[in-house]
């Protein structure tokens, strides 16, 4: 039984009265422990697919219209009343600032631990988390005072606290420095081994070579290729991004 299943997904956006199609006929399935890289040029539709998988489109963004079928752990994402948190889906958006509630670092972490009722356990988990991301000195800072990289690592570190079954990460490494990227890759490897399904949108395939199992390339809203990671070649990527200079290496 696949954990994530998309069948013939079409997404239209309604801007100033007319429906513009942005995603055309996208289908794929992911089993337990699979890691999918979602790649494609700027504006190809990667983020739109991410928003659709977790149901933000169309449930929260009503200017979008969705056709087709999306199911996660056999639940219909497009059905009325679908809630991503009930299905243990975690989505980290591209802009880390869009995920804070305007509290301080300590309080933002507390919110992500609200499901833990045992006080000792709560304190222990929080202590470890803060140490891992190196924000010990920043606990009482409002999140607005953090740098973009620190914001991104704070958001990413909280992604796994509620033991999600499906994790969606939209360009998760964009603002991270080398040591934090290493931290994230290790974290994702552990989650993958636990059977978590991970979908990562990225421009950096090389970074996830070891971790990923599949690559879905989107071009102008359509599937350009859908392959195992082992089948990805530099030429294929140059073709996807329409780079004519063959000396450029991407993988």
């Amino acid at each position, binding site marked *: 039984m696949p954990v994530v299943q998309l069948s013939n997904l079409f997404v239209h956006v309604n801007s100033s009265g007319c429906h513009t199609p942005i995603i055309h006929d996208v289908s794929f399935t992911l089993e337990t422990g699979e890691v999918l890289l979602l790649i494609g040029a*700027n504006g190809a539709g990667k983020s739109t697919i991410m928003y659709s998988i977790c149901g933000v489109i169309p449930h929260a963004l009503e200017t979008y219209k969705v056709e087709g079928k999306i199911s996660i752990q056999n639940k219909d994402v497009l059905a009325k009343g679908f809630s991503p948190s009930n299905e243990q889906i975690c989505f980290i958006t591209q802009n880390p*600032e869009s995920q804070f509630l305007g509290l301080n670092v300590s309080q933002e972490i507390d919110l992500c631990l609200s499901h833990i009722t045992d006080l000792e356990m709560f304190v222990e988990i929080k202590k470890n988390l803060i140490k891992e991301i190196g924000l010990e000195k920043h606990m*009482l800072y409002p999140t607005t005072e953090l740098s973009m*990289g620190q914001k991104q690592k704070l958001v990413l570190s909280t992604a796994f606290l509620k033991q999600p079954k499906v994790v969606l990460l939209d*360009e998760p490494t*964009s*603002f991270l420095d080398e040591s934090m990227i290493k931290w994230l890759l290790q974290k994702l490897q552990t989650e993958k081994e636990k059977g978590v399904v991970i979908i990562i949108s990225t421009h950096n395939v090389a970074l996830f070579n070891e971790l990923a199992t599949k690559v879905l390339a989107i071009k102008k809203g359509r599937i350009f290729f859908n392959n195992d990671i082992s089948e990805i070649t530099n030429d294929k990527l140059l073709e996807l991004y329409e*780079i004519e200079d063959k000396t450029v290496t991407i993988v």
Partner: protein
Amino acid sequence: MGQEFNYSASDIKYKYSYGDWVLRDVCLNIKPCELIKINGKNGSGKTTLFLALSGLLKYKSGNIVLNDSSLLSMNFSERSSYIGVAFQNPSYQLFGTSIKDELLFGIKNQGYSEQDLGIRIRIFEEHFGQFDYERNSSELSFGWKKILSIACIYAMNPRILILDEPEVGLDPLSIYKLEKLIVNYLSNGNSVVFSSHQKKFLNSIKNTSYTLNNGILNIEG
């Protein structure tokens, strides 16, 4: 070739209301045609440095002298012809109006008119293709917002272009185009100061690298 310019920042200090000094006695000279890379970990103060260098942040002490005048004493249009910064998060820079209005905002403040826009972003569009001027910037993907935010500063044609992690969110083709654009910009006598966590970005072009650590800026090598 543009005219010569002198840019010298000395003993710049800054701290936010929370925490320690972010910049401690930072000194930096920028010469025409120079490509400067600022390295540093997450939270080391790179963005703060860029805001200070561009005069957007009132540093607590120190001085930045641009052609014998203090940077902070200059008005916007004077300053913007010398130095401009494209922010790390493009959302801070865009108003959510049409792409044309986004591009016009800066150059109108410099005293130029709509007719001047074409020529001011001609080379940018030769690299990235023509923008759809009537489209609203809020509809763009993150990557395209980033490209537009760089174009807005580019249009103002500053002698020193500061780019705060400009490759973030850009696909490989756009990164390739951006590198070519920067090389072209440098060849016209301008300077570029940038930060990036991607080692390969602009790696093949001769640059001066600095590391920012604990608020201290040191030249590498």
